[in-house]
């Protein structure tokens, strides 16, 4: 029997639902958590700092203002700060200036676009951002993560507010095993593919019953032409590692089960009639009607229910933490289970509770993280060996995503006026797509390849107008017209690296320009190139 295709058999209606006795991910109830009324950034600092004390760790110094501004701009809006922003931040001496910047970046349209792009990649791994329209709308309207989960699972194209959601399931529906595991990873933080072939060897939480249990919720979903449809019957049968073929129950990762939704398995005649209907829908290109009871809706209900929602609450918290800090509270990100505890269990539990009790508000989650002192540490650790990543005592280098890299290259070539930041950022984003395709996507084990270095050194695309445009509002032109080499040096470093030049750099650059007297503009271009090809530019550090 081919189990992969998800065969549908007449089901034996389950008489009784067994109580879920399986162990939960981490026993949150045993942890003593700080008060829920504290601001998230305070809790982050308090609990991470407690870890340093316990381990005797010496954290890195705080990052300087320029470093912090570049980091937070890249993390919140996906782009480097512009000249006026850098100058204004340096000039502001008020104690609340970081909060002001965070508020202002989060209020900009680039915040929604960047977060939507990141979530899109997280969910689809497709650089064409197929969920873009939907996610931009959802984030602009501040929909919670629970609602986004529900809308992606229900995939109602007919409703204007959820238009564009179907592509998520459609992308994976031809392979239900993949769909099952992808949903499990993205929304519950657990990769259960091991349990597909055998009971998980180390994780008592997962048996094959769990994999096929979760798959049951998707087994009724199928494609009809361009549409997605769901039957109101169908169960999964599988051949366990040991013993005879089994029918999977509709079971969540926690072991919680529900009765098979719907009115039970159909007769042969009904099935024939249904097959006919499917053919008709295909021919007439109409959206098949919703089932009387949706198994996917049941999954959403179960996964978000008070007793079972711990997986859901924690997965995105860990993912966003990973994105902001460059290392998850649980690593690998898809192994959030009882045998792989978080580095900071109280912190993860507190943040998950806060996330859930504030309507799964993604901006709040992000804001708490970037407002912490821990987030603001330097990525440089002087003296002694660097503390382990899971102590968050030194900031990690995060490679720029293809879009971040391309937008940064575009913005670096421009001179932006104080009143036109938003406009110029949009312009840079719009023109960055083609360039973004030249850079590889980032992953946990990301390494820069020679193709990238060769492209930057010798690619005509990289060396021409696309990256070094000229004109009144362009860096290259402004730089070549500057009154002195020192001024040129400062302009280049500010434009490309979003900070003033330090003494050595300024003299290096001034000397470089002096040594190339033939064509001052060409010398300026080479200086800009050298900064763009530096690791300081390549990473969010």
């Amino acid at each position: 029997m081919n189990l992969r295709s998800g065969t549908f058999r007449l089901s034996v209606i389950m008489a009784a639902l067994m109580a879920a006795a399986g162990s939960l991910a981490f026993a949150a109830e045993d942890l003593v958590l700080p008060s829920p009324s504290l601001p998230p950034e305070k809790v982050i600092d308090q609990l991470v700092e407690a870890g340093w004390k316990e381990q005797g760790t010496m954290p890195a110094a705080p990052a300087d203002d320029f470093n912090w501004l570049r980091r937070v701009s890249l993390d919140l809006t996906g782009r480097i700060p512009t000249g006026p922003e850098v100058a204004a931040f340096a000039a502001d001496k008020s104690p609340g200036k970081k909060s002001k910047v965070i508020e202002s970046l989060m209020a900009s349209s680039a915040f929604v676009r960047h977060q939507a792009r990141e979530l899109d990649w997280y969910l689809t791994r497709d650089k064409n951002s197929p969920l873009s329209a939907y996610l931009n709308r959802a984030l602009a309207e501040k929909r919670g993560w629970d609602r986004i989960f529900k809308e992606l699972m229900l995939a109602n194209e007919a409703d204007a507010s959820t238009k564009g959601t179907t592509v998520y399931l459609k992308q994976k529906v031809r392979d239900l095993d993949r769909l099952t595991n992808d949903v499990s990873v993205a929304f519950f933080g657990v990769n259960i593919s091991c349990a597909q072939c055998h009971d998980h060897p180390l994780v008592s939480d997962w048996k094959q019953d769990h994999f096929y249990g979760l798959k049951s919720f998707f087994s009724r979903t199928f494609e009809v032409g361009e549409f997605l449809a769901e039957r109101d019957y169908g169960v999964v049968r599988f051949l366990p590692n040991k013993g005879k073929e089994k029918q999977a129950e509709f079971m969540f990762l926690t072991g919680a089960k529900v009765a098979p939704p719907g009115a039970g398995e159909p007769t042969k005649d009904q099935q024939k009639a249904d097959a006919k209907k499917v053919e008709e829908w295909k021919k007439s290109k109409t959206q098949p009607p919703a089932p009387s009871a949706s198994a996917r809706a049941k999954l959403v209900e179960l996964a978000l229910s008070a007793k079972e929602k711990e997986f859901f609450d924690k997965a995105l918290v860990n993912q966003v933490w990973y994105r902001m800090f460059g290392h998850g509270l649980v690593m690998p990100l898809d192994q959030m289970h009882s045998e792989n505890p978080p580095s900071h269990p109280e912190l993860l539990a507190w943040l998950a509770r806060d996330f859930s009790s504030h309507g799964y508000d993604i901006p709040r989650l992000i804001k708490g993280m970037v407002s912490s002192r821990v987030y603001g540490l330097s990525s440089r650790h002087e003296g002694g060996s660097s503390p382990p990543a899971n102590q968050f005592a030194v900031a990690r280098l995060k490679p720029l995503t293809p879009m971040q890299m391309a937008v940064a290259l575009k913005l670096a070539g421009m001179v932006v006026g104080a009143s036109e930041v938003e406009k110029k950022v949009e312009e840079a984003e719009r023109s960055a797509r083609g360039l973004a395709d030249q850079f590889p996507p980032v992953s946990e084990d990301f390494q820069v390849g020679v193709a990238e270095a060769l492209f930057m050194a010798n690619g005509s695309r990289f060396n021409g107008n696309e990256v070094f445009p000229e004109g009144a509002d362009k860096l290259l032109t402004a730089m070549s017209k500057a009154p002195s080499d020192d001024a040129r040096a400062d302009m280049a470093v500010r434009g490309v690296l979003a900070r003033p030049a330090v003494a050595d750099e300024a003299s290096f650059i001034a000397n470089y320009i002096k040594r190339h007297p033939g064509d001052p503009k060409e010398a300026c271009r080479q200086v800009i190139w050298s900064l763009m090809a530096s690791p300081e530019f390549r990473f969010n550090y």
Partner: protein
Amino acid sequence: MSSIPGSCTPSEHAASRRQFLGAAAASGITAMVSGSSALAGEVAKRGKRVILLWLAGGASQFETFDPKPGAVTGGPFRSIQTSTSGVRVSELMPRMAARLKDTCLIRSLNTKNADHGGGAELMMRGRRDEASVRYPDMGSVLARELGDSESKVPDYVSFYLQSEGQGFSGTGAGFLGARFGPMQLHKGTTPENLSRLDTISASDFADRMALRESWSRAFEKGRVSAALGSHQQAFARVGGLMESQKLFDLSNESAKTREAYGPTQFGEQALIARRLVEAGVPFVRVGRAWWDSHGQNFETHQEMVPELDHVMATLLDDLGQRGMLKDTLVITLSEFGRTPNINASLGRDHFASAWSCSLSGCGVVGGSVYGKTDDRGDKVAEGEIGAARLFATIYKALGINPQKNYHLGSRPVPLTDPGTEPVKEVLA
């Protein structure tokens, strides 16, 4: 690596009573690749190289390595005796027939996938991709296993200049990432971005590189990160790689050698391949398209097999004369073979159930044949192997343990499917 929480042992997946096609590693979110290293194999594989002659579109086994003259399926060509007693090949391959001493013919491939795209991916990766695991191809694996992180030459070069079938090239670094991917030559025999643009002088180029280097050094102080190291390494390799452009330029080669390989595109690329492996490139694929002879199979093969015969024999002679053959494995492989049945257009169609490939040089028993098809070439009669065992054999011949694990998140992924054994008879 079993210390990673939640890891499972690969053998359990092999033991599973169902075909394992599971989605793993979350569409690659946790593509943490870590190999077990520092074993005996690390020494054995040193200096080993591979040239893959990729016969795109599917060459016919009948008109090459497994002729069946006289059978209804045999076609018009005769077979000829080779330098190995009792072994015959198609008369279209006289030069290889005379120098079979370094070559092992494998006549018993049953790879089950007779579709160009799927077949090419299977024969370049040794397995099918899983729903969310993109496996690296042979070249990327060997770039990682045999390459040197500071090498001045590329790790993996792939030629595929004909337009037919380019979409089915089967190459890709999969979960190993762009770092180990091929330098693709699709348009000409000169790689992209390897030469300095006219708009910058050589001295300015070097100057701006030095300036970049100074920013890099300043930034690295007090910062430790593998990604940061790779950035520095990638730029450090630029100069050497640009130098390696001369390897692609055959005007540096003697007229005699060029004549020996012949003036064909395939011959020239094979010669470039030899120059590349000689300079330390671990893996070069030379694609020759398009063998897809659904019509006029015999004319197609009459034209293409002698070229293959000539180029392959010349390459082996050249490697032999240079003392490189003991460390260089030359593989001749397609995505599949061709049907025994001759269709109405006198063509042969796609066929993956009983076909041939060859391994020459490094680590294999020369002058030998492994496996056998039945009299008509319909089925494998002896020694049937699939893509997985072929790959395990190739890795083993190069001194690499085929069961060495990479890690995708916490899941160990061996180089070839769990439990796959190399073919001992093929290995020297």
